[in-house]
């Protein structure tokens, strides 16, 4: 930074600040109240990705953040531009994803007059952001942006919004980046467990006969993969993962149990219910994970290592809480861990693995039916498990979690907490910008894909190599499944008419294939993978297949609905 400070407009300061924060690309959509900033964009090195809907911009920033671990940035105008961001901001909040959203606001003298395209976006986003700012003077912009990036990425990450009035963008002031450094955070020193808590945790771990590690998203956010690996190996503890934790511990590792909870394999939930110690790492005992709380892991002592103290004892009461950065806490714990491998416990779990819901479909002979599981499993084999898979929300999301085995962190990007349909396509665009060399696959249902498919144009305009697999079953599948199980099969508003996705893709200039037979799956995947550029495959899968096993919402983890064998037999008999 030069010693002599230039006088710049607020709009120019936005870009200069973003450049100083190492931002190389932003996702946005222009409009009246943000026009000064877009004018200043012509003088900036930052690459701007024009989206087709502001929700897409926030999901792209989110996908960028999840794929890279860096802060993603989205920009929109005031009013509808800002309100269109709400879903994406809430998605990032629920999944602790660090994004910064910049919105234009009407001139400061117009605020509160119901001016054209005015909305109280700081008020609207107050409960779904970590923090937000209403900025009315150019002097506030650089310090607020610096602080916003710090807040978004620190502690438990999350979204931050800056609402900047048009006159603050137009007015000028001295730009002094050094002086804009944020003040030390008020919470210093951050929480850190004392020796007493560390000792208590060690005693529980070293005495446990049937321990299970519950691996959550916090492992990835903290960068604690190695430490978790060391803990599991040293003490011989099996690892169950949350949906957002998938990838944080290698799927191929013998101690990996797989995903826990509502659609987890029976043995995973059984192990948790039988355990005498649960070691929860950066996870929050979501209701989709615990089922009925009063019967959840009643035999187990519980250790919770978590950076957000509001999560401690929220759903499940724990015996030892270690509040702090997961990696730092584990580094403290590891020297005191006694190596052990209680082979009885591991043998017991290994024996229960024979009861698998996932296996029974994947080895079926071709009976003329194409199941989503075949598609996901083939995708896993074709990509050798090395692609970044970005999923939408619904049945395909759970099948992906069951049949695509993630070896590495940040290789699965999915909306877990908020369950936002329409997430996949834009989030994949963000992921591709974050990791241009990675193979990026969208796996979406026919329902969710149609919510944000306008972003196909963004893919083409940016010449992105993003592959798209639509798991098309002609239903809003997960809702249909619930209707089948819990509403006596009354399919209210779940049968879904879709366009011919291949023709649609071709209209955008994206090559596409339609797959209806199991034998076509691998060739279609290969064709798409070898194509340099975006490609789409419409997989017409079994219409009324369900995700098994399933623990009904709020039920005991043992009360799972298994795949009824008749379904499989019927399929092979036909």
């Amino acid at each position: 930074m030069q010693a002599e400070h230039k006088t710049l407009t607020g709009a120019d300061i936005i870009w200069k600040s973003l450049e100083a924060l190492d931002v190389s690309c932003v996702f946005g959509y222009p409009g009246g109240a943000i026009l000064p900033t877009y004018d200043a964009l012509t003088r900036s090195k930052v690459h701007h990705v024009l989206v087709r809907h502001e929700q897409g911009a926030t999901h792209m920033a989110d996908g960028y953040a999840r794929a890279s671990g860096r802060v993603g940035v989205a920009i929109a105008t005031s009013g509808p531009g800002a309100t269109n961001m709400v879903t994406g901001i809430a998605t990032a909040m629920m999944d602790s994803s660090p994004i910064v959203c910049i919105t234009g606001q009407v001139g400061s003298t117009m605020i509160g007059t119901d001016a054209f395209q005015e909305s109280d976006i700081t008020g609207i986003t107050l409960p779904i952001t970590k923090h937000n700012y209403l900025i009315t003077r150019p002097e506030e912009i650089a310090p607020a942006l610096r602080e916003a990036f710090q807040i978004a990425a620190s502690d438990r990450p999350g979204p931050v919004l800056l609402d900047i009035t048009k006159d603050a963008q137009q007015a000028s002031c001295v730009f002094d980046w050094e002086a804009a450094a944020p003040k030390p955070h008020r919470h210093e020193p951050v929480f850190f467990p004392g020796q007493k808590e560390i000792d208590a945790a060690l005693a529980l771990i070293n005495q446990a006969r049937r321990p299970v590690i519950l691996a959550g998203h916090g492992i990835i956010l903290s960068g604690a993969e190695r430490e978790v690996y060391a803990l599991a190996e040293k003490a011989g503890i099996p690892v169950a993962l949350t949906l957002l934790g998938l990838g944080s511990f290698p799927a191929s590792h013998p101690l990996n149990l797989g995903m826990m909870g509502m659609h987890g394999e029976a043995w995973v939930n059984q192990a948790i219910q039988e355990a005498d110690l649960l070691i929860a790492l950066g996870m929050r005992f979501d209701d989709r994970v615990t089922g009925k709380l009063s019967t959840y892991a009643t035999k187990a002592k519980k250790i919770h290592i978590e950076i957000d103290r509001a999560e401690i004892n929220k759903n499940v009461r724990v015996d030892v809480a270690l509040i702090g950065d997961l990696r730092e806490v584990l580094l403290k714990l590891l020297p005191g861990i006694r190596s052990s491998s209680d082979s009885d416990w591991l043998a017991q779990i290994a024996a229960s693995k024979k009861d698998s819901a996932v296996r029974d479909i994947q080895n079926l002979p071709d009976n003329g039916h194409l199941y989503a599981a075949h598609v996901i499993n083939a995708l896993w084999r074709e990509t050798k498990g090395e692609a970044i898979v970005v999923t939408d929300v619904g049945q395909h999301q759970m099948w992906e979690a069951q049949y695509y085995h993630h070896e590495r962190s940040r290789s699965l990007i999915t909306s877990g907490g908020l369950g936002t349909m329409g997430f996949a396509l834009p989030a994949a665009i963000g992921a591709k910008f974050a990791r241009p060399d990675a193979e990026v696959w969208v796996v979406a249902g026919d329902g969710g894909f149609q919510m944000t498919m306008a972003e196909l144009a963004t893919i083409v305009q940016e010449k992105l190599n993003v592959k798209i697999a639509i798991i098309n079953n002609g239903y809003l599948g997960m809702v249909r499944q619930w209707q089948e199980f819990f509403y006596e099969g009354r399919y209210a508003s779940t049968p879904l008419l879709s366009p011919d996705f291949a023709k649609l893709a071709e209209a955008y200039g994206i090559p596409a294939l339609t797959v209806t037979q199991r034998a076509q799956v691998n060739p279609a995947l290969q064709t798409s993978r070898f194509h340099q550029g975006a490609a789409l495959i419409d997989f017409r899968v079994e219409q009324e297949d369900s995700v098994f096993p399933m623990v009904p919402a709020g039920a005991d983890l043992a009360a799972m609905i298994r795949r009824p064998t008749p379904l499989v037999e019927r399929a092979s008999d036909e």
Partner: protein
Amino acid sequence: MSERSRLHTFIVYVENKPGVLNRVASLFRRRAYNIESLTVGHTERPGVSRMTIVSAIGEGGAHRVEANIYKLVNVLSVEDVTAASTVARSLALIKVEASEESRHRLMQIVRVFRARVVDLAPQSLIIEITGGEDKVNALLEVLRPFGIIEMVRTGQVVMTRSLRTDSSQEADRPKPSPQTVEASHSV
């Protein structure tokens, strides 16, 4: 949550910035907890305000609200002082019907409660009282038969007591009966 709720008192230090009250209050609103009283004012530190919030919440909910208030960027500190030894005060202005005949008796009541008359009109007077909730409530009970025309109450302001080990001071500490507590601690 079906757990039993009771009145919890939170003391929150916040940066004196626009919207902070909204951020704090929103955490109660989100869980449909009613705020019984809330006071905000300046503190001994410039730019720092102090809130005293009283709300009926269950134990688990109170922990969660406290932890979530702590996470707000503009919050400097938060403490649930419900179980702590505290001094709690609020102020009330009460306009009472006062004829020539009843005025004398009202004045006597005011003296007993160590309240003050701050405005006198031919048909009414305004009484100012400071004290704990119980004391203010007790005065209201006594005044009600005279006819309360209008009343305004501040919420509680609360301060934790300093630790006192000196036995001579120990004698000053409030005794269990609420009435005695109020009498010995009237300002």
